[in-house]
């Protein structure tokens, strides 16, 4: 190992943060750009399935909470793009990659939000899974990413709580509301379970990422933690998890669960999810429609600058 790389690895092992101008292996930089930008894209695309229901929220209070949540997500995307930019890629480049379909984002956002109960399910399950993934990242090796994650985690707790609160209200409501909640759970359970990604044996990047402390727990560990915590919550809600094999295993001290259909996961990741095309199209349209706005503001700034110079 060349001396700079040894020094780099020693820093990581000692828990010292790597900062933007520190020497880093090119692969570390590339992996981080990919990971951080994917996370950022997920937040931005994630605004859409929930944004869907802002205008239809059933009370003014729920509307306000949902608005705040979706706004938070935009903010998280912004922090993350900022962190990625410290590595030498521009926001414009990342956005271009996303809109051209070259960049990935969490496939969970390619599922449709069909009822108000989906707002509950997403907050409870999707944000729940995200939190489990994100808290360890607060300790990741790259400074700007870790600091961004600290900010994000502070705001994320409220997201999960409000989702759970919606599910609670629905499950204690009318028979139709309870059915709505159960239906949402049926549709969002497996996509949320798959959020943590395939088993690490299948995952190409895991080992190196663990050594570089960009990834702190294995996908399977995170998934197990999610299922353990969520199965109990579902019981509390009086709802049934759509997995007949879900069962507490006293020997393991964890819940056993059924086989995951990775076929579907892979298809959705490849762009065959029912909303992939729509989500991207919406983002592309927004970006294109906004070009004259961005251009107008930029032109004004240039004019002002030359006026002041004169």
């Amino acid at each position: 190992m060349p001396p700079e790389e040894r020094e780099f690895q020693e820093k990581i092992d000692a828990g010292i943060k790597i900062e933007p101008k520190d020497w880093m292996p090119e692969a570390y930089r590339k992996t981080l750009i990919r990971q951080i930008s994917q996370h950022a894209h997920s937040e931005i695309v994630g605004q859409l399935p929930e944004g869907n229901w802002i205008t239809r929220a059933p009370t003014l209070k729920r509307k306000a909470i949902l608005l705040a949540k979706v706004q938070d997500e935009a903010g998280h995307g912004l922090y993350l793009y900022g962190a990625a930019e410290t590595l030498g890629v521009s926001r414009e480049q990342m956005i271009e990659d996303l809109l051209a379909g070259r960049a990935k984002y969490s496939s969970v956002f390619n599922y449709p939000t069909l009822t108000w109960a989906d707002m509950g399910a997403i907050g409870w399950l999707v944000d729940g899974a995200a939190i489990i993934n994100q808290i360890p990242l607060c300790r990741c090796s790259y400074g700007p990413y870790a600091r961004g994650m600290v900010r994000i985690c502070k705001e994320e707790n409220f997201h999960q709580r409000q989702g759970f609160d919606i599910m609670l209200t629905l499950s204690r409501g009318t028979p139709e509301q309870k059915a709505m909640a159960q239906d949402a759970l049926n549709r969002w359970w497996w996509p949320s379970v798959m959020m943590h990604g395939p088993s690490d044996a299948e995952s190409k990047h895991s080992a190196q990422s663990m050594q570089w402390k960009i990834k702190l727990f294995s996908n399977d560990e995170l998934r197990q933690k999610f299922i353990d915590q969520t199965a109990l919550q579902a019981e509390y809600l009086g709802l049934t998890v759509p997995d007949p094999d879900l069962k507490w295993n006293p020997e393991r001290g964890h819940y056993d669960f059924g086989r995951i259909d990775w076929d579907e996961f892979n298809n959705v990741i490849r762009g065959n999810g029912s909303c992939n095309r729509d989500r991207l199209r919406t983002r592309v349209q927004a970006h294109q429609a906004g070009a004259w706005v961005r251009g107008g503001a930029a032109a004004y700034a240039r004019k002002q600058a030359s006026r002041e110079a004169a």
Partner: protein
Amino acid sequence: MPENRPAERQPNSAADESGTDWPLWEIFIRTQNGLAHKHAGSLHAPDAEMALKNARDVYTRRNEGVSIWVVRSSDITASSPRDKEILFEPANSKVYRYPGFYDVPEEVKKL
């Protein structure tokens, strides 16, 4: 010496000349009873006035800040990590300044 060094990036000089790109700004916030401005992050804006407003919207949504400074990222000069040894550390031989190099007895571990 600021704890959070402002981020360094590849020069985004194309942004100012091209049609629609907005330059990058670093945001510093001093909270209500804070002692100094702290680096909060970055954002894109066409000019300083908009940067200030966007910073208020993005970084003080929870009323976290009172005073906001915005600086164009390209206007920041940062020290290079290699300079660290000269600027901040005494010569390598003087390691005794660092707590880690003292042998602290078990009983006094809280030092």
